[in-house]
Structure formats: C-alpha cells, structure tokens
C-alpha cells in the first residue's frame, strides 16, 4: 500500500515483552537482583552484534523529568507514573525509534515505531534484535504457553502491535461504531488516541491487538494490516461521500482551519488537533494539494507539550507552550502551503 493510499495511517508501533528465566518478574524483584539484572543486560547490549545496528544509551527512570514524562506518553504510550517507584531503566536509540524499557511490567519491553503502515518491517527489525538478545540471555519460555510475562494478558508471543489512524469521515458519519464492532471480532480493539475524556479528539484512533496467545506474530501482524486496510477503504468511501454531499461545508471548515493555523499567536493542543484533523482530511480529499501529509503528521508529535519543553530545554509555562505551538504551526503552514 502506498503512502497516499494508506493516508489514514499515521504511525505503526510494536512492543515485545520478554523476561529472563533466572530472575523473578520486576513486581517482586529485590533491589540487589534488579541491579544484577541491569548489569547483565548492560553487558549484553554492549555485544558487537547489537552495537553494529544500534547506538544505545541508558537512562534511569528516576532522571525522567516532567517534559520527558509527557513525551514518553505521547511517543511510546508509556505511563511513567505507574513505574516511577520501580527503578526502571530506559535504553534507547532515538535515531532508530527504538526504546527498551527495563524493569517495568516485565524485564524487557522492546518497542519500535515508524510513520506509515509498516508493521511487517517493524517486526522484522524487532525480531532480529530479539534473536540477538536471545543468543545471550535465557528467556522465560514455556513450549505450551510461549513467552512468559508478568500479566497473563501478554503471554504467548508477548507481541502488541498498534496502528494510529486518522478517521474523520468515519467519525462524522457514525460508522466508527462499525469499525469497533468489526475489529473486536478479530481480537483487536479500537481506542481514541487521546483517551476517553477527549472522545474522538482529532479523529485519531489506535487499533491494537489484545490477543497474544494462539496466533503467530505474523498472523497478528497480517490480520492487523488487513484490518487497517479495510478500515482505510471504508474511511476513503465515507470521505468521498462527504466530498460529494457536503463539499462546500468541508471546504469552508478546512480553509477556516488553515486560516487559524497560519495566523494564530496562541494555540491550545485540543484546538490545534481539531484544525489539523480538518486539514488532513482536506489533503486526503485532494482539496488541499500542496501540504505534505508526512510533515503534518510530524507536527502532531512535535507540538506535544512534552516535546516542546524538551526541545526548549526548559519548563515552559502554559502561555509559552501555546505560543510555541502556534509558532510551529504558522511556520509549517506558511512555508508549506
């Protein structure tokens, strides 16, 4: 599927849970054992096979500041608050979008993400890294139950795949319920990216598998890829219906959004997401032609509060955050369109 055809897809993400057989799971691990585990893993991550592909750096969860917590949530779906007392570590290679959480729910949560519908490629890369670690470590594994994890919801493959989708037309026509129903029949779930309180904010949804046992990794990935393609087709159909039946209203909405994003001096996140959603829909409907959709997707992440503060290398107050966000939006939309 080309980037234009899968324009409903923003990002793909996979995380893999693994535990080491000789250690208790993190929830009951003593401080000494945790240090021993970290020291063993440091040794393994320094192996030539891994260093050849990744430039890994370590950071303690205790050194994660407020801005970074926000970034972890939006970029990695990781809730720092849940684990801040557990002494977890982060091992990452930002250029490869690779993040390994050590000592959270499981000993290892190995995670990668990429723009576009790229689950197969992500799994290839993660599986190769998994094999390299497997060469040096003895994973907790049972031939019947698969990879053993601290939560029984992750046992088996230990693989969770998710795809972030932009579905404004299905949201507007109410067919998003159809998506929920169809996905659940296939062991997948659909959730609003910005949580229940912000229902449907920016029409961003995350499709993910919740079944990890009884299907191979490739079955999970192929099923999800196929479901995402089917949802994309339905979204495109719904969008075309909207373009035909409500073109003027649609144009009015997206040009207003463009005006706001090109002019505003202060921008709230929620308001920005609604405007970006309208414009993204306009690009897909080929009403707006000169705005690169990839750049717009990057803007969603770049304007997150956590990322803005990390980039500024200081804590920004609410007004500064809004100003910084508006400034990035203006720069993008004046330059690109």
């Amino acid at each position, binding site marked *: 599927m080309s980037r234009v055809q899968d324009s409903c897809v923003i990002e793909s993400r996979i995380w893999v849970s693994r*535990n080491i*057989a*000789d*250690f*208790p*799971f993190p*929830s*009951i*691990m*003593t*401080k000494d*054992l945790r240090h021993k585990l970290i020291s063993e893993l440091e040794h393994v991550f320094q192996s030539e096979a891994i260093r050849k592909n990744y430039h890994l750096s370590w950071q303690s969860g205790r050194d994660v500041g407020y801005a970074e917590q926000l970034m972890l949530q939006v970029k990695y779906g990781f809730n720092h608050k849940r684990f801040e007392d557990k002494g977890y570590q982060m091992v990452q290679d930002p250029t490869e979008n690779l993040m390994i959480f050590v000592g959270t*729910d499981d000993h290892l949560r190995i995670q990668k993400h990429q723009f576009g519908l790229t689950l197969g490629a992500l799994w290839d890369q993660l*599986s190769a890294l*998994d*094999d390299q670690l*497997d*060469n040096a470590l*003895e*994973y*907790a*594994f*049972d*031939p*019947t*139950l*698969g*990879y*053993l*994890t*601290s*939560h*029984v*919801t992750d*046992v*088996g*493959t230990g*693989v969770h795949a998710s795809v972030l989708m932009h579905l404004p037309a299905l949201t507007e026509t109410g067919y998003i319920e159809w998506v929920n129903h169809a996905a659940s029949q296939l*062991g997948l779930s659909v959730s609003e990216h910005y949580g229940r309180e912000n229902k449907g904010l920016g029409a961003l949804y995350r499709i993910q598998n*919740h*079944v*990890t*046992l*009884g*299907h*191979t*990794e490739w*079955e999970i990935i192929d099923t999800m890829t196929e479901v995402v393609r089917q949802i994309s087709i339905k979204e495109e159909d719904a969008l075309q219906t909207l373009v035909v039946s409500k073109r003027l209203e649609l144009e009015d909405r997206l040009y207003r959004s463009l005006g706001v994003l090109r002019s505003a001096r202060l921008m709230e996140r929620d308001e920005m997401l609604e405007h970006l959603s309208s414009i993204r829909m306009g690009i897909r409907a080929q009403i707006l032609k000169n705005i690169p959709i990839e750049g717009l997707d990057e803007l969603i992440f770049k304007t997150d509060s956590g990322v803005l503060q990390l980039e500024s290398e200081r804590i920004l107050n609410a007004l500064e955050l809004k100003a910084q966000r508006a400034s990035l939006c203006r720069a993008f939309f004046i330059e690109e369109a």
Partner: protein
Amino acid sequence: MKCEHCNTNQASIELNQIIDGEKQIVHMCEGCAQKMKPSSPYLKNGFMSGLLDTINSSGLQVNYIKTTACSKCGMTYGKYKESGQLGCNACYEAFGDKLKPLIRRIHGSERHTGKMPIRYRGTAKVQREVTRLRGQLDHAVRREAFEEAAMIRDRISALEKSIEGTNCKTSPSSEEDVKGSSNE
C-alpha cells in the same frame, strides 16, 4: 513458610477462619488440608466443616482457600489476585489450574504457536513432526495397516528419544537464585 500443622512441608494453603468472633489465619500444606477431619481443632464450626468437605471432594476451592504459593518466588495466589501480576515464570506452573481458564477466556487459546527461543527451535520442529506422525499412526491403525503403523510407531519413538536427549542438555535454571521479595 512451613505448614503450621505438620511443621515439615511448605505451606501452600491459607485458611481464614473465625473462632469466637476472632479471625484466625492458618497456613497449611495441601496434604494436611486434605487430611483434616471435622474433629480437628481448626474445625469448630459448620463453615469450616463445609470447607473441608469441599476440599476433600473436589480439591482446592478458590472460595475458601486464599493462597497457593509458588515454590520458586513465594508469590501466593491471593497476592496475585490482588496485584494481577505474577512473580516469576514458575508461577504459571504453580497456579496452572487456576490460570488456564483465565488464559483461555482472554486469548481463546491455551497454546502458543509463534516464535520460540533459539534453544527450543530444533525441538519444536521435531515435536511438530511427532504430532504429524501420530495423526498418520491413527489413520494407519484405523485402516488396519499394522505393518505401516509399526514403522510409524518406531519413527515416533526415535524422535521422542531425540527430544528427551535435547531436553537433558538444557539445564534448568537454579531455583535458589530466584527468590524475590516484595518487601523491598
């Protein structure tokens, strides 16, 4: 923790009882719990008699028995139910009977079919071949092709021996090293 009844075996069951209005907790091994009779000092009321009737007739009942402990990490089933997190890989075996229905309900399956660690990969291939041959064996027996069945049986037997050999080479990890504590 030792069984408070025989003082020998590891306690794997935690019984809650109320005697004269006071709650008492007794830790016992499975054997002692099974052997307990209504005359036991722990059985002063009908509630407890009922409990042990249930234990004697149908094994351990979750309603009454709060705890089964994992011998490797000490995690109890009661603690697992509170936290939702298992203590170590051996917990899957320790709580197997209780976890299986839960796993089946969550995943709709009890059998992993995906990737395996490198050390298992050869064995898994052989295991799949054994399963395939067993199907052929059944078929041959149904057709009364006994000569063919005997050949298949020998092939299965040889493959199973090779698996046993492989398993022996994989030394199990030391349980001594895996004691964890939640009292950090």
